[in-house]
């Protein structure tokens, strides 16, 4: 390992150092504000270490982690999502956790971010597994973090058991791939004729599809989204999905894992079914968390267009660029939606503000939050002037370039169905509450504490502004993504 390698690894090292500093700080002083401050300082320092890492040039360290502009683009997304989650989680934990310690949450948040960063760089099966497990283990504990109620524990247990099965399938697939190719590194030549290799790749893809909650591996998603505390749900929906997508795109491009026709067919079927089933099931829900869970199934289904395109050598740069732009948009809009939910949940006691009725009349009571949630919903639906439109436009372009017309048609149909339930969220917010005095009572009660959640509200509004600003002027994101995609592997 050379000095340049260490420079390339700077973001990871800063993040690990910050995690240890946070642990030390907790063991000396139990202070929630201090834990938040150390966490934010660490994450911001990590963010500033990213340009330094880029300056070291693209390199593969020990054949284990590839640090390049592609990985650092995703690292920036993960760190920004972690900053947003920490700020959103602060007031939530302050209100919800009174008996247990609150500070460990931030340690888990930092280790989860590290796991995601390792996955974005993985070029080796061992890095794949270790990164995934660092992320998943942290998430189990974060999902089960609240002290009261059975729902978080139940969600964490479901996630633990099912994700354990998926990891096992994946490991078995890796063993088969290793038996076929004799190498654990991603650049191993993949021969489509060997049955062992194809079976191995299929098992790995099944494990990945589980983590991405694609149909038919999606059963856990709504329950886990619903049971997890709102700020954690936002983190699960963005960082854990984003890390797997980053890894999957790199894996497909580097190994040519989709070299066999049956595998491509399988991915296409999974994509089409995810788009249609995700959107149809979302129509039936009255719970915002479940709506967003099914909508995320559909969104990752859309994103598989980029994965299929990545399988062809000529399409790889376009596929990577699409994946990066799409995920940047997806992160912004999903975090904004869960952010609004977190702000409302932090103010009310009891359950998270997840029932749609809780949002009735929000436009009259909290215009800024309602506007942000509307921007997020419109963006998820892919309406112009939002980042969601740019992201979806990229998918159309990618589908057209690869001539993947089945997938493009499924994307059109899925989006058309989706508009209904996204607009339903906005419609609910414009309704005046059924009973006039009930609405006033709800408004009057938390008014005293409301002033406190300013930092979470600021994050939410910033995310909402990001959706619109980058929707009108997406050039900065596109430029960075294009440069990273062109430089990939070169």
């Amino acid at each position, binding site marked *: 390992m050379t000095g340049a390698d260490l420079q390339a690894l700077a973001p990871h090292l800063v993040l690990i150092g910050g995690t240890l500093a946070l642990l030390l700080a907790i063991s000396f002083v139990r202070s929630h504000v201090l834990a938040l401050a150390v966490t934010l300082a660490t994450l911001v320092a990590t963010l500033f270490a990213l340009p330094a890492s880029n300056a070291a040039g693209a390199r593969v360290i020990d054949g284990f*982690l590839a640090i390049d502009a592609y990985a650092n683009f995703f690292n920036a997304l993960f760190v920004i999502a972690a900053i947003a989650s920490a700020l959103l989680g602060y007031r939530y934990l302050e209100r919800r956790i009174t*008996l247990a*310690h609150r500070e*460990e949450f931030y340690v888990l948040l930092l280790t989860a971010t590290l796991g995601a960063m390792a996955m974005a760089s993985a070029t080796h099966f061992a890095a794949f597994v270790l*990164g995934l497990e*660092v992320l998943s283990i942290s998430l189990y*504990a974060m999902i089960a973090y609240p002290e009261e109620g059975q729902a978080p524990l139940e969600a964490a247990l479901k996630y633990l058991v099912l994700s354990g099965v998926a990891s096992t399938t994946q490991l078995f697939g890796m063993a088969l791939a290793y038996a076929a190719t004799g190498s654990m590194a991603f650049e191993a030549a993949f021969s489509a004729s060997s049955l062992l290799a194809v079976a191995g790749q299929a098992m790995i893809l099944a494990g990945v599809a589980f983590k991405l909650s694609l149909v038919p591996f999606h059963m856990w998603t709504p329950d886990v989204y619903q049971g997890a505390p709102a700020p954690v749900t936002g983190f699960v929906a963005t960082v854990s999905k984003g890390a797997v997508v980053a890894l999957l795109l790199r894996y497909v491009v580097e190994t040519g894992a989709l070299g066999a026709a049956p595998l491509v067919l399988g991915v296409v079927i999974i994509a089409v079914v995810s788009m249609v089933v995700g959107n149809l099931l979302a129509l039936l829900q009255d719970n915002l968390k479940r709506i967003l869970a099914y909508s995320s199934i559909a969104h990752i289904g859309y994103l598989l267009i980029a994965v299929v395109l990545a399988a062809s050598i000529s399409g790889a740069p376009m596929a990577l660029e699409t994946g990066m732009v799409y995920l940047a948009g997806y992160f912004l809009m999903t975090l904004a939606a869960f952010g609004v939910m977190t702000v409302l949940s932090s103010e009310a006691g009891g359950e998270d503000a997840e029932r749609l009725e809780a949002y009735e009349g929000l436009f009259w009571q909290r215009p800024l939050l309602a506007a942000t949630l509307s921007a997020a919903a419109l963006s998820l639906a892919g309406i112009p002037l939002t980042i969601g439109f740019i992201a979806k436009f990229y998918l159309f372009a990618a589908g057209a370039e690869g001539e993947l017309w089945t997938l493009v048609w499924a994307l059109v149909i899925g989006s058309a169905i989706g508009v209904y339930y996204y607009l339903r969220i906005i419609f609910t917010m414009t309704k005046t509450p059924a009973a006039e005095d009930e609405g006033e009572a709800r408004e009057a009660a938390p008014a005293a504490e409301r002033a406190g959640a300013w930092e979470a509200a600021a994050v939410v509004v910033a995310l909402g502004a990001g959706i619109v600003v980058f929707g009108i002027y997406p050039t900065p994101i596109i430029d960075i993504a294009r440069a990273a995609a062109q430089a990939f592997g070169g």
Partner: protein
Amino acid sequence: MELTLFYIAAAVAIAAAALVVTRLNAAHALVWLVVALLAIAVIFFLLGAPFAAALEIVIYAGAIVVLFLFVVMMLNLGRRSITRERLWLEPGMWIGPAILTAILFGEMIFLIASSDTGDAGSPIGPKAVGEALFGQYLLAVELAAMLLLAALVGAYHLGRRYLRDRREEAS
């Protein structure tokens, strides 16, 4: 010859693993788990990795499973557990695991007596393992350290909840 030995050990591993999952009694399942791990250690030995085989026995069969056994047996202390412990120690329970372990033991004796390296390639000793761990796979070791840290912090937090629930039940 080696292939036959491999199939015997593999059959023992699968049979023991199937029994682990189907046993209703946690303590019995753990005993079968020890047998499965021993069988896997024999397979490692056959593949020319005596150090990995030794680690499998020392760490998995030795430390981790015995720790599990202690935890399972120490939970729910009280009069009920004494009768349960008597059930766990029913005579005859040990016969199955003993037979499978004897098969593995016979294999090991045979292997050591014949002492030919066979076509499995050169054996990989502790030094080679150490060099790989702290050379090529240094980053993997660091990542694994963070994995354990996350697991530790998570278990600590969830364990406190469990302890509090129990205290409330007691009072």
